[in-house]
């Protein structure tokens, strides 16, 4: 490939990837921006001022999204890590069935399950609550955590744990000083992306939260395609921030080899 084509490739991918994000940055600082102007005729901070005001409820929604996301990712670690270890390091009857069960939520639409859960949650009085939303977010989050951690545990050698145990370490110390440091890089990335799964949910939050649990996606959704692009853009940029942080985080491990995110993708 000639250097001209390579340059075009780099530039082309850069434009295609960057444009939908860049245009939102410009919109968030636009005060007047009418057709056919290529840039705003008047710039302003009113959208950002609105976002940081109490009346926008962005701060409140940000805390709700953060709280739900943290709860989902911590619960996913607790639920997913032992299961991933069992699947990667042990053979047991029914293993094939469990592996199959993990793939089902990825392929089978969650619509019916979520609606069915809603009815049960109404009876259990967790519908319209953050707890209910956390529980329903676990459905896409836990299989993801398990699938990533299975590949982490598949390259994990248990011999060190045996050695530590022979030397008198108890289960807690073995986990803290031997297991955790070995799986930490994979675990951190899996946790980050599990958080993002919860953070990005819309329809599950809408159905189970019943419009009472207001996350950032709840605020952003009705603004898209509306008349106030500046506000929508500012909220959208707040909403995308953790994803950009995750990219920055994984970019450092990019130095070790390209396509680290290869196995981490979700459609």
């Amino acid at each position, binding site marked *: *490939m000639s250097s001209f084509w*390579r340059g075009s490739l*780099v530039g082309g991918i850069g434009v*295609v*990837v960057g*444009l*939908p*994000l860049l*245009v939102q940055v410009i919109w968030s600082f636009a005060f007047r921006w009418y*057709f*056919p*102007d*290529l840039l705003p005729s008047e710039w302003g901070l009113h959208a950002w001022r609105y976002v940081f005001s109490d009346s926008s409820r962005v701060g409140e929604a940000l805390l709700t999204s953060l709280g739900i996301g943290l709860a989902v990712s911590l619960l996913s670690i*607790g*639920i997913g890590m*032992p*299961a991933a270890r*069992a*699947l990667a390091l*042990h053979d*047991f009857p029914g293993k094939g069935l*469990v592996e199959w*069960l993990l793939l089902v939520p990825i*392929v*089978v*639409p969650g*619509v*019916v*399950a*979520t*609606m*069915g859960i809603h*009815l049960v949650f*109404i009876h259990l009085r967790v519908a319209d609550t953050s707890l209910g939303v956390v529980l329903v977010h*676990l*459905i896409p989050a*836990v299989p993801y955590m398990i699938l990533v951690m299975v590949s982490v545990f598949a390259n994990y050698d248990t011999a060190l744990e045996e050695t530590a145990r022979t030397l008198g370490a108890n289960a807690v110390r073995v986990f803290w000083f031997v297991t955790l440091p070995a799986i930490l890089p994979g675990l951190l990335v899996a946790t980050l*992306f599990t958080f*993002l799964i919860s953070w*990005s949910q819309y329809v599950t939050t*809408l*159905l189970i939260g019943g419009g009472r649990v207001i996350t950032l996606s709840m605020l*952003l*959704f009705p603004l*898209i*395609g509306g008349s106030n*692009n500046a506000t929508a853009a500012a909220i*959208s940029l707040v*909403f*995308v921030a953790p*994803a950009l942080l*995750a*990219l920055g985080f994984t970019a450092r491990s*990019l130095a070790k080899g*390209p*396509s680290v995110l*290869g196995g*981490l*993708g979700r*459609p």
Partner: protein
Amino acid sequence: MGRPEWWERLKILLMLLPALLVLVGLFSGGLVVGLGQSLGYLPAAGLHSVTLQHYVDLLVEDAFWQSLWVTFSLAFTSTLLSTLVAVPCAFLLRDTFRGSRLVNFLFQVPIPIPHLVVAFGVVTLVAQSGMLARLLASLGWLSEPSQFPALVFDRAGVAIQLVYLWKEIPFIGLVVLAVLQNVGPDYEALAQTLGATRWQRFRHVLLPLILPAILSTSMIVFAFVFASYEIPLLLGVRFPTPLPVWSIQLYRDPDLSLRPGAMAIGVLLTLFSILWLVAYRRLMRYALRASGGR
């Protein structure tokens, strides 16, 4: 180790139990309750009898089949287009060149970005008064926003396709790229020494190796798009309504008697997903055999 076997078994069961509670208890449990409601069993709305009427009502309606077709073609086109762009991208990104690390990074950017953010970005770019129309206007090619084609809320769903392409090309491409990198250049070099042409090296060496990755990722994309609600609702056609949108709109209606119908649409959506999955597995096995893989 002197631990008895039953103890090991119990330990494994305990390790799996919380995950099984989520997968079976929540997901499958929800499916079963949803199925019950689709059959008309909804005590909260005073409905106790079990009936197939809600399915019959749907299946005799033209609107249902039109919606199914819209949902299917949306998923099919976006999967096909994403795959067709993703595979060549993976091949381009395989080589190391000046700036290849930057391109690799850029290619991964869409992976964690939420669909809603992409949807908004696409609207501001391709709406009739969007950036693209403004660019054409500044070149003097049009003077009114209405002269720009309606790409949002159009019948073809161009804006929807763009959102999915932006998100799913890297998803498929990165998995294929990972396989290509694991394969390395050795097989191709060997085939070349044996006199294989460029096309033969692709067709008989690389394609069988990357085909499982292409088929499994594109299947996941298809299933995802087929069942997704937000993007068609935000950017899509109003009629025929895609099945997930229709189902959730009925479910959110204050009239509880519409819920069994909403559930029936959801169950049919699920059945069709499983049908595609089975067909896909058949196709995958056939394609692998035909391409000379396992």
